[in-house]
């Protein structure tokens, strides 16, 4: 049964991708409904799979000696993330029915979204390191294609290529890690790798651990690779909600959580993870404070919240990080889709040109505020419980400076969330305009996500149970929902965090009285607007590459004879190496 479900979760969206493409762009109505149908079917299959969670390998497809077997294991981590990917995926597709109405080339749009949903489910369900890499790269490719969907806009094309190149850096780290693991254990199976990890030479294990950390940081947009995510906001908003908030960017956190038992004892690894997470959280929150583009603020807050998850893994809170991942997927998809509804009616992403939208779009305002409260971490929404769990794990097992930083970032989060909400919905409208609230399909997805934001924290108990029974290597212990609730409510970290969050909210409320402080920090704000110089670092690398290419360019003579010399030279080297390594001529 589990095998059929897994095939359905991956296969149905891919089949849908082909069907939508074959239907052709002359029949947009059919395309809308086909895409929605296939994604909803995949979402239902993923929900049913949650009942069949186990640590058994249920699918094993031989792929030859070189590639190892293509295996799938529906364990708690994989099944839960597959459910998030397919369900948020189908809600994004339903939202698109309104959002993309009247757009050209819907076939390309829906095909890539469905292709992405299947690949994301495959990424989290496979237990083969090599195929993990393959699915990883498919998600990068679809992400690139969808960021550059409006391919007559140079900014969209540049953003897509930037995302592709930076995530490729991570892909190289992943491949290096996977090959090193294969070379030392003789298998691509993740389970076998986790078992044998402690017998590997320390240096090899370090290479694998840090390779995977680079991969995760690039995919999850963590410092210093975070610069691609804000530029990826040129994508259509449902794509941003699905790929760049709820699913693909979580792949990095997923990999860290999956391999945590193998890497936790590698010297310096946990410290590096804590550093990456907390610095990303802080820098992104600061940049969110000063950004004026609605989607960019949300992108920065995504980086910041992913920083929380990475930090949680660094301090050993695998459950807390995955729980925050669940909450974040739901409330951030909600925020993005609500922002999409706003952008769709106003026609701009600049928050300075919005304002006063609350009266015109009451439904969107209500769900956006629910999402905003969850992002800020206020009770009793799902973001509150999971963020407090992360902070509690940090206080118990992590360094104090990192905990202090994360609590401070919680205050910043409240501040920029309040700022964003009041700039968009509060105040008075700047000019006469004709605004309509979200359409029916939009309201349906927004409503479901809002209900999710209010309720997913109730799943803490079953979720922990599912993870602990199917992930033997992680040694998690399950507790009931009410134990989690009691733990959070009585923890000293919670009061502290709530206090700081209240301070953040108060700071925006009384910002006029703090004007002096604002002037004092003016230069710092400019620094944050410029992205703390990471963009010039990128430009430096690009320029150096171009310069190097220019320098070695004359080597290409364009003459066939010289190419033959090159080929012969290569042949001689290979033959000499073969002769040396096989012992001939020694």
């Amino acid at each position: 049964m589990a095998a059929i479900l897994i095939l359905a979760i991956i296969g149905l969206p891919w089949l849908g991708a082909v069907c939508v493409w074959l239907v052709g762009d002359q029949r947009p109505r059919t395309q809308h409904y086909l895409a929605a149908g296939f994604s909803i079917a995949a979402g239902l299959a993923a929900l049913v799979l949650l009942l069949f969670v186990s640590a058994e390998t249920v699918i094993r497809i031989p792929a030859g000696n070189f590639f190892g077997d293509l295996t799938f294991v529906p364990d708690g981590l994989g099944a839960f993330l597959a459910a998030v990917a397919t369900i948020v995926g189908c809600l994004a597709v339903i939202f698109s029915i309104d959002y993309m109405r009247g757009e050209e080339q819907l076939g390309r749009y829906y095909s890539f979204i469905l292709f992405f949903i299947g690949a994301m489910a495959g990424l989290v369900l496979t237990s083969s390191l090599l195929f993990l890499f393959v699915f990883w790269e498919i998600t990068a490719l679809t992400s690139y294609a969808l960021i550059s969907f409006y391919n007559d806009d140079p900014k969209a094309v540049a953003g897509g290529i930037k995302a592709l190149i930076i995530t490729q850096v991570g892909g190289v780290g992943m491949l290096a890690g996977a090959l090193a693991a294969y070379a030392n254990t003789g298998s691509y199976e993740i389970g076998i790798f986790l078992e044998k990890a402690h017998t590997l030479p320390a240096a090899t294990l370090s290479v694998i651990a840090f390779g995977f950390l680079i991969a995760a940081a690039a995919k999850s947009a963590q410092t210093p690779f975070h610069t691609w995510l804000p530029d990826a906001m040129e994508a259509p908003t449902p794509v941003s909600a699905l790929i760049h908030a709820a699913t693909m960017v979580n792949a990095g956190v997923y990999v860290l959580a999956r391999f945590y038992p193998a890497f936790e004892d590698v010297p310096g690894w946990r410290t590096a993870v804590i550093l990456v997470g907390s610095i990303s959280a802080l820098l992104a929150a600061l940049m969110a404070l000063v950004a004026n583009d609605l989607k960019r603020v949300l992108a920065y807050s995504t980086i910041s919240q992913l920083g929380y998850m990475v930090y949680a893994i660094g301090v050993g809170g695998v459950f807390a990080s995955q729980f925050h991942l669940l909450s974040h997927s739901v409330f951030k998809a909600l925020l993005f889709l609500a922002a999409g509804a706003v952008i769709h009616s106003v026609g701009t992403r600049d928050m300075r040109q919005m304002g006063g939208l609350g009266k015109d779009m009451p439904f969107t305002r209500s769900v956006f505020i629910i999402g905003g409260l969850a992002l800020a971490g206020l009770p009793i929404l799902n973001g509150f419980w999971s963020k407090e769990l992360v902070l509690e794990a940090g206080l118990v097992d992590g360094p104090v400076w990192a905990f202090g930083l994360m609590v401070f970032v919680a205050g910043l989060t409240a501040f920029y969330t309040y700022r964003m909400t009041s700039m968009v919905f509060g105040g008075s409208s700047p000019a006469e305009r004709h605004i309509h609230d979200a359409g029916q399909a939009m309201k349906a997805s927004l409503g479901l996500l809002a209900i999710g934001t209010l309720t997913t924290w109730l799943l803490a108990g079953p979720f922990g149970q599912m993870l602990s029974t199917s992930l033997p290597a992680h040694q998690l212990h399950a507790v009931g929902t009410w134990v989690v609730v009691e733990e959070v409510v009585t923890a000293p970290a919670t009061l502290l965090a709530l206090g700081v969050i209240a301070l953040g909210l108060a700071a925006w409320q009384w910002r006029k009285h703090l004007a002096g402080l604002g002037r004092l920090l003016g230069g710092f704000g400019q620094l944050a607007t410029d992205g703390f110089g990471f963009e010039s670092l990128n430009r430096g690398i690009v320029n150096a590459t171009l310069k190097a290419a220019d320098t070695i360019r004359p080597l290409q003579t364009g003459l066939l004879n010289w190419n033959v010399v090159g080929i012969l030279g290569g042949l001689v080297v290979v033959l000499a190496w073969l002769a040396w390594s096989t012992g001939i001529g020694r």
Partner: protein
Amino acid sequence: MAAFLQNPLNVFALGVLGLLGMGIYGLLITRNMIKMVAVLQILVKSAVLALVLAGKAGGNINLGQSLAATVIVSDTIVAVIGLALGVQIQRRFGTADLKEIATLKG
């Protein structure tokens, strides 16, 4: 030396090396596109001979011969396409000199 040539396999091996040397030398010095195709043919013939020779030496003559036949067929296609390209280049550039048509020069 005479003993070396007594074994027919060695003679064939010399033939393979000779054809290979001629082919590579030709590839290095030829500037004409059409001549390049002809030189390539010599090079491939050395490979065909080597296949037959390897089949005989390895005791699997049938395999060697069938592979040789395969190479002959695929090589014909290479020659045809190469010559067609040569004709096109001649028409477009007015010359078949490789130095004149080196548009990939950095």
